[in-house]
């Protein structure tokens, strides 16, 4: 029997919000309240190891922004992720273009090929790069064996560029996929029309391909920037001194130094930073890019 005489579909329509209850409740309890808690702790006062008292002070934030070390860590983090992002776009674009333009029918297979090693263990991959780039790693022993260098050099490892390489390995498929989707949706006739109207290859690329790729670029940035800013395993394992990132600092303050107020304040700053960077990208690339 129908619960309402107004008709079946209206009834179904009216009931729809019930389906939202489990997910919103869950996130309210385990995500939104904890975030509020995080912000709350960030105003507390630090006493000593794992000891802090409730307060409403800005000193954690002040300390973060006045300390040359912490601000440098933040800027360093943004720099490393920025470089990785730029390189990912530069490397990913030709691949996506190749797949979309020339081998469309086997696109799924090529993307699958890229995804397989990436969807399985993340730490294994960091470990793999360590074995290659480390002082006692493949690269060094290869170069010694070939005779390019005399003894192993510690230059490939424990620096920020190692982080960039591993990050690229981590995210390349997730950059290629949105770019590919964007490129795929450009009908071939648009390129032909541009040629027909007098545009050369380069002009076509600059005036047609690139602007129409904006949604893909924006999606790629969303996908890579946010988790990469909060990375701490990669820098811890391959980063060394020049690759100290804000994730390491938070982990250190939270678990080792026991300074929750500072760690939570840094987390809030990290959260804000990632939202701001995404916001800037949306602004630069145009909001309409999000809704094609």
């Amino acid at each position, binding site marked *: 029997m*129908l619960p309402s*005489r*107004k*008709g*079946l*579909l*209206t009834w179904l329509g009216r009931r729809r919000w019930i389906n939202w209850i489990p997910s919103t409740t869950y996130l309210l309890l385990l995500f939104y309240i904890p975030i509020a808690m995080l912000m709350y702790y960030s105003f507390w006062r630090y006493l000593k190891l794992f000891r802090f008292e409730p307060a409403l002070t800005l000193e954690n934030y002040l300390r973060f922004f006045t300390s040359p070390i912490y601000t440098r860590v933040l800027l360093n983090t943004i720099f490393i992720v920025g470089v990785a992002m730029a390189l990912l776009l530069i490397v990913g674009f030709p691949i996506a273009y190749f797949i979309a333009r020339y081998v469309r029918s086997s696109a799924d297979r090529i993307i699958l090929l890229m995804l397989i090693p990436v969807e399985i263990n993340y730490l294994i991959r960091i470990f793999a790069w360590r074995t290659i780039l480390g002082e006692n790693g493949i690269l060094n022993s290869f170069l010694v064996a070939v005779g390019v260098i005399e003894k192993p050099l510690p230059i490939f490892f424990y620096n920020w560029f190692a982080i960039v390489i591993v990050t690229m390995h981590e995210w390349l498929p997730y950059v290629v996929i949105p770019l590919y989707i964007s490129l795929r949706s450009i009908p071939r006739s648009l390129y032909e029309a541009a040629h027909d109207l007098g545009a050369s290859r380069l002009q076509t690329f600059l005036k047609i391909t690139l602007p129409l790729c904006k949604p893909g670029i924006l999606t790629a940035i969303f996908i890579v920037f946010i988790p990469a800013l909060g990375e701490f395993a990669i820098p811890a394992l391959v980063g060394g001194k020049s690759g100290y990132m804000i994730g390491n600092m938070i982990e250190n303050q939270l678990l080792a130094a026991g300074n929750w107020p500072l760690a939570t304040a840094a987390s809030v700053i990290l959260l804000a930073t990632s939202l701001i960077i995404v916001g800037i990208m949306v602004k630069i690339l145009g909001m309409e890019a999000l809704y094609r």
Partner: protein
Amino acid sequence: MTTPPALELLNVTKTYGNVAALRDITLAVRKGEFITILGPSGSGKSTLLKIIGGFEEPDKGEVRINGQVINNTPPFKRPTSMVFQDLALFPHLNVFENIAYGLKVRKFPRDEIRRRVKWAAELLHIEKLIDRRITQLSGGQQQRVALARSLVLEPEVLLLDEPLGPLDLKLRREMQIELRRVQRSLKATWVYVTHDHEEAMTMSDRVAILNEGRLLAVGDIKTIYEKPCSRFVAEFLGEANFFEARVTQVAEGKTLLDTGSMLLLAPSKPGLREGEIIQVMIRPEKIKLAKREEPINRSKGKVLDLTYKGAFVDVKFETEHGYVMLARFTSTESINIGDTIEVAWSAEDVIILRCR
């Protein structure tokens, strides 16, 4: 006592927000009739069909099937069945399972299901496709499956929502003839919605013309085509030459009209008053090349444009009275742009656009 109509709509009204989709629609469909609801897109014709099928509820008015009010019956309890515009064949089921779907949910015995599916498949010439997947069928075959899926339920009223839209012209013609054949052989009541007047003309017993939610005309297509009651109906069913004219004389079953620069003789209509301004129409195919000077209902003009349409040619010409008129001749006439032609038409073909 007379049997009630198979389908009856009484004062059906539907609004979406501020937009009136249907205004006061009253329509009765006889049993065994093929009626087409014809209207441009946005005229409300699909809404009307949805209301009959039970997917929308009218704000006002009644829907009756065989005399029973079914306003509050949900779609799965109505004795109607719909062939959707996009067919909505279930992609996870094969042809047999699609056709049998309605019977299965109604818990028909297995033998009966098999018998009925076989019957429908044979009727529509798809018995060889019965094990295929839906995606392996051509457009025309899919149409047939969708139709079979509804027909096995032996609905009191079958609703068809522009199902032939995506087919190409040739296939469409074939399916039109096929649909007509099936409907005639079943003597079933069908309500067909389309925006294509040629489709409506070739298929239906009666046509209901809908525009902006209003029912403008109901009747057999020939009558509506030849004696439309409004300019919209006349234009919707084909091209025509329209004139505004003053009634100057009414006598002996004839009416003399004056457009200001040209005199027209038309059959008279009851209720015409001298001096009144009215709209008249002449279909382009009623205009003939005049062999000799006619006293009235004639004109001379210079050919502006020719459009070939296969067997006939549309001639646009500017008359000595300053009108741009359209005439339609068979392609055999040799006329060139710039030629001067003399044309004439008979009084019966001057149609006064007025209801009743």
